[in-house]
C-alpha cells in the first residue's frame, strides 16, 4: 500500500488540516513509512485468533439511566471563543 500526493491532500482536507503544497512530498514519505511499519503485522498468522479488545477480559461498564450531569451552561461555554445567551457562536454555516 502506497500513498500518493493526491491522497495526502485528501486526507489532510478530511481532517481539516491545512498543509502547504511544499509539505505534501514530505508528508507522503512519512505516511508511507508509517504504513510500511504497520504492514509488518500482516506477516503474523492470525487465522482463528479472536481480535483482542482489552488486555484483561472485561465487560463494558454501563451507567444507569439517571440524570447526573448538566444544568451548568456557563461551564459548557466557558472556553468558547464566542458565545451569546449560552449559545456557542460559530462562523455561519448554511446548508
Amino acid at each position: 500500500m502506497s500513498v500518493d500526493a493526491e491522497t495526502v491532500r485528501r486526507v489532510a482536507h478530511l481532517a481539516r488540516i491545512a498543509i502547504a503544497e511544499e509539505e505534501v512530498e514530505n508528508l507522503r514519505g512519512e505516511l508511507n513509512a508509517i504504513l510500511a511499519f504497520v504492514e509488518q503485522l500482516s506477516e503474523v498468522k492470525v487465522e482463528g485468533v479472536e481480535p483482542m479488545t482489552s488486555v484483561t477480559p472485561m465487560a463494558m461498564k454501563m451507567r444507569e439511566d439517571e440524570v447526573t450531569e448538566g444544568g451548568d451552561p456557563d461551564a459548557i461555554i466557558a472556553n468558547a471563543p464566542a458565545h451569546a445567551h449560552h449559545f456557542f457562536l460559530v462562523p455561519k454555516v448554511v446548508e
Partner: protein
Amino acid sequence: MDAPARKSKLIRGATGDWEVIIGMEVHAQVASRAKLFSGASTEFGGEANTHVSLVDAAMPGMLPVINAECVRQAVRTGLGLNAKINPRSVFDRKNYFYPDLPQGYQISQYKSPIVGEGEVIVDMPDGETVRVGIERLHLEQDAGKSLHEQNPTMSLVDLNRAGVALMEIVSKPDLRSAEEAKAFVAKLRNVLRYLGTCDGDMEKGNLRADINVSVRRPGEPLGTRCEIKNVNSIRFIGQAIEHEARRQIEVIEDGGAIEQETRLFDPAKGETRSMRTKEEAHDYRYFPDPDLLPLELSPALVAELKAHLPELPDAKKARFMRDYALTAYDADVLVAERETAEYFETLLGGSGTAQRRDPKLAANWVINELAGRLNREGKDITAAPVSAAQLGTILDLIGDGTISGKIAKDVFEIVWTEGGDPRVIVEQRGLKQVTDVAALEKLVAAIVAQHPDKVADARTNPKAIGWFVGQVMKASGGKANPQAVNDLLKQKIGI
C-alpha cells in the same frame, strides 16, 4: 425485491408504466431519561446548553459510558420487530465535521449493529398485507442544533440534543408506493409507542425518516436512487415520495439520467430539491471507537426483556377480533393508538372473556362518538373529558333500559362539557326513559286520535307505524322507550 411488480402500485408515465422502489431509514429517539453516553438529561427544549455534560461537549479527556437502559430499549425494539438480536455489537466512529458535532465524529454502529434482520407486517386499508423487511437497527448519538437566522454573520449552536440516543431503523427496499411507505411508518411508530421505546412525537423530531426512492420499468434492474433527508411527518413522507417518483420518471422519459444525490423536501412547495451544497463524496472513515468495548448481551438479558414485552398491535388486534368478535376494521382503529386500546378495554370493564359490557356497543361509542368529538376539538384521548368510567356508566344506563341511545348522546354531551356522574345527571334532569305503560298509553292514544288518516295508512302498510313512533318519541322529549311505544301502537292500531 425481485418479486414481480404489483400492477396496482404502478405509476403511469408518458411512455408506459413505472414501478417505484422505496426503502426507509427511520431515526427514532430512544425514550430514556439520560443520554446514550452521558448523564445529561434528554428533556426536550430548555435554555441553550443546559442539558449538556462535558462528555457531550467533547471536552478533552472525557470518556463515554453507555446508558444500560438505552441498550435495553434497543433490544426491546428489536424483539418487537421480530428481529435477530446480536449478542455482540460494536460502536464505531463516523467522522465528519459540523459545528453541532463537537466530537468531530458521531458514535454509531457500522459493521456490527445491535439488531439484525426483522420484519414489520403492514395492513393496508384495502385489505392487502405488505411484509416489510428490516435490514438492521443500530444505536447512535444525535447531534446538536444549529440556528442560522438569529445572527447575520454567525450560527448559534445548542448542544442540548447532542448525545441523545437514537435508533436508526433501516428497512429493506420492500415498499412500492407512497401509501405503503406512510402505512409502514405509521405502523413502526405504533409498535415503538406500544413498546415504550420511543414516544413517536414527529413534531418534536423524535421520529423522522430518510427516504430512498428509485424508479424502474417493471422487471428491469433497480434504478439509481435519491435520498430524501429528514422528513418529519407522515403526510410529508407521502408527498415527498409522490413528487420524487414523478420527477425521476420525467427525467428518464425526457432522455436524462438520475444522479445519485441527497435531496430535501420542501413542505411549503410540496417538492424535493437537490441540497445546495454538493457534498463531497462521503468518506466517513469508520473505525471501532477505542473508548468503548464491544457491547455484549447475555442470552439471559434478552430472554428477560422478551418475557416482559407488552402486547403489541398485531397481537392485540387478533385478540380483539377473537375475544370481542370485533371486525378487522374496528379492531384496527382501536389498536392504532395504544391509549385508545387501553381506554376501550377499561370501558369494557374487564379483559379476556369476562368483560361486563357489550364490546360492539363499546367499540361503536369509542370509534364514533368519542373519537369524533376528540377529533373536532383536536384533543388526545388521554385528555378526554369523558373518562372510560363515565362512558361505562352511560353504556350501563342504555343497557338496563334507563335511557335510550338517543338520550345517551345528550348525556355524553353534558358529561363532556360539564363533567359529573351520568347516573346523577339522568336522575336530576329527568332524562329517564319512560317505560311506564300508563303514561305512554296516554301519549299513544292522543296521537292516534289526532291522525285517523295515518291510522288507515298504517293498517294497509305496517311500515307506516314508524311515523307514529317518531311522533310519540317527539311528544315524550325523546324519553319514551321506543320498543314499548312500538308495542303499544301495534295494539292500539290493531296490526
